[in-house]
């Protein structure tokens, strides 16, 4: 029943995204309209996939570092992505895919660095070291980015930051294709880690006694969640909030079992981001709002309601 509800909500969100837009498209022409086929449909799908990826990555990372504040960008990825994008522009690389690829490379570099820092204590990934390392790497990358922007001061750099704040204005079928080819592996890895994550929630020692290979689970989950996030940054910039709030909301609705929670977080994130992007496109038309603002404006009240229910029970 709950799955049916979530599925219906997803279909509804995608449908609204196709029907609504800054320019009215008559019902009869929906199927044949270029605007719907080439602009709205890829945009809606991309928003859904990215939202889902962020929601899932957030749920997995929160379990991994056992910290409710964890979100996909806590571990330095946004800083690395921003630095990559700004470096590409400052060194005059150009081409239609430069910015996404550079942001992806930057996020991966940050991930590798944080991973190395996370191994500080020895051969095992230490969650506390991961968080601290992530914050440190993020701050460092942010400082270098700001230095480049303030020294080079080209218009393109400021516009690159605008892109980095996130949005789906540039969505195309190419982007959807890239995500569809890329997402399955980290998605499957994360979904397969559902049971070990349940055990890990009991604590490191109990998890070990119950037969979980804690070190391996941590490595896999961290790398898979980071890869998902890096791809999300590459196609849509840094969209905050989805990966933080959606997992908590889904936990309130569905409980703590990761086998249920992880797919629910994927669907929930997709629904939230698709709806938010539709609002961003429509509400101040012909202009457009940054989608991150809408996710916060739409998501916070919903989250507050859920929190009340949650604390009341």
């Amino acid at each position, binding site marked *: 029943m709950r799955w049916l509800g979530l599925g219906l909500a997803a279909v509804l969100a995608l449908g609204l995204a196709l029907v609504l837009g800054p320019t009215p498209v008559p019902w009869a022409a929906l199927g044949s309209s*270029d*605007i719907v086929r080439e602009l709205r449909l890829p945009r809606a799908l991309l928003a859904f996939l990215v939202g889902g990826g962020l929601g899932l990555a957030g749920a997995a990372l929160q379990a991994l570092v056992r910290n409710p504040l964890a979100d996909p960008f806590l571990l330095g990825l946004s800083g690395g992505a921003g630095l990559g994008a700004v470096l590409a522009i400052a060194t005059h690389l150009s081409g239609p895919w430069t*910015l996404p690829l550079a942001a992806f490379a930057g996020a991966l570099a940050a991930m590798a660095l944080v991973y190395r820092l996370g191994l500080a204590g020895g051969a095992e990934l230490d969650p506390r070291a991961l968080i601290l390392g992530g914050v440190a790497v993020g701050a460092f990358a942010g400082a270098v980015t700001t230095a480049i922007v303030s020294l080079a001061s080209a218009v393109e750099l400021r516009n690159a930051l*605008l892109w980095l704040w996130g949005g789906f204005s540039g*969505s*195309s*079928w190419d982007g959807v294709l890239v995500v569809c080819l890329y997402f399955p592996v980290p998605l499957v890895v994360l979904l397969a880690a559902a049971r070990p994550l349940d055990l890990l929630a009991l604590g490191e020692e109990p998890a070990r006694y119950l037969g979980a290979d804690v070190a391996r689970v941590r490595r896999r989950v961290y790398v898979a969640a980071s890869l998902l996030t890096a791809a999300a940054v590459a196609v849509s910039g840094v969209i905050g909030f989805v990966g933080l709030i959606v997992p908590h909301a889904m936990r309130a609705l569905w409980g703590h079992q990761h086998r249920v929670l992880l797919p629910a977080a994927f669907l929930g994130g997709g629904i939230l981001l698709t709806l938010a992007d539709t609002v961003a496109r429509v509400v101040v038309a012909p*202009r457009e709002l940054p989608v991150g603002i809408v996710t916060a404006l739409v998501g916070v009240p919903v989250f507050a309601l859920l929190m009340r229910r949650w604390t009341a029970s």
Partner: protein
Amino acid sequence: MALAHRARRRLPISAPTGVGFFAMRRSAHRTHLAGLLALLAACGGGERGATTRAPLPPARRIVSLSPAVTELLYALGAGDRVVGRTTWCDYPPAVRAVPSVGDGLSPNLEAIVARRPDLVVLYRSALNETAAQRLRALGLATAVLPQDRLEDLAAAARVLGRLTGRSAAGDSIAQSLAALVAAPAPDLGVRLAFIVWDNPPMVIGGASYLDQLATLAGARNVFHDLGTSSAVVSIETIAARDPDVLVTLVDSGAPRLPAFAARREWQALRAVRERRLVMLTGSLFGRPSPRAAAAVAELRRQLEGGEGATR
């Protein structure tokens, strides 16, 4: 690209046209020196402000913090008195020999003071108003001039003419700019959009100088109704407004096709599919300047050429 545009977009909220126009009209009315001096005195504060010398001697060492002002000063014949410029000042070429004092956006006070100017001219923006206050506190004369539209530039020409003792030249530049504004070229029937950035797509709205250029060249900006100088819109909106021509600004060098022209999602635009793209150099087109007449003529030539090529 335009300092004006850049500076304006840095503000969190762009002023709606109405407000901008109002302020501009008001400042146009008090372009005489007395008004400016009163302003200086009012802001200078205390004893210093009270020592208003009646006929101010012409400024001899001027730091210009905007490319448009730099061009104006050279056009007035006061180019040899420019002792400081911004990194964006690239016209006339002689100005490159003048030391730069930074990018002029959040002015580097120390660099400005080190040039020992007797007049600092700033573009009017919130950041620059604060900087001007501090410069005045340091005992430097400042002029803060709006430079968003050609009308602003005409007013600025008069003010700078008086401040440099070249009122006649200033008035003549102002008159030729006013004449240009008063007589737009006959309508070409071309509807265009200025694309200043592709992801997120950013277009030029009605408050911008480029919008004015388009009108003067006999074309219409399809985003004229947007009250700000620039705005983020969706590709869908651009496609729905269906401009005949897309105009982009290039910094310098050989005009290159913009990268977005090759991207799939942009093919939803007729102007992209038909490759009706016009590239303009930022130095001439990105800011209101005394060369506006040349900019208008060049834009019109390119638009007419584009028309011919597709027929």
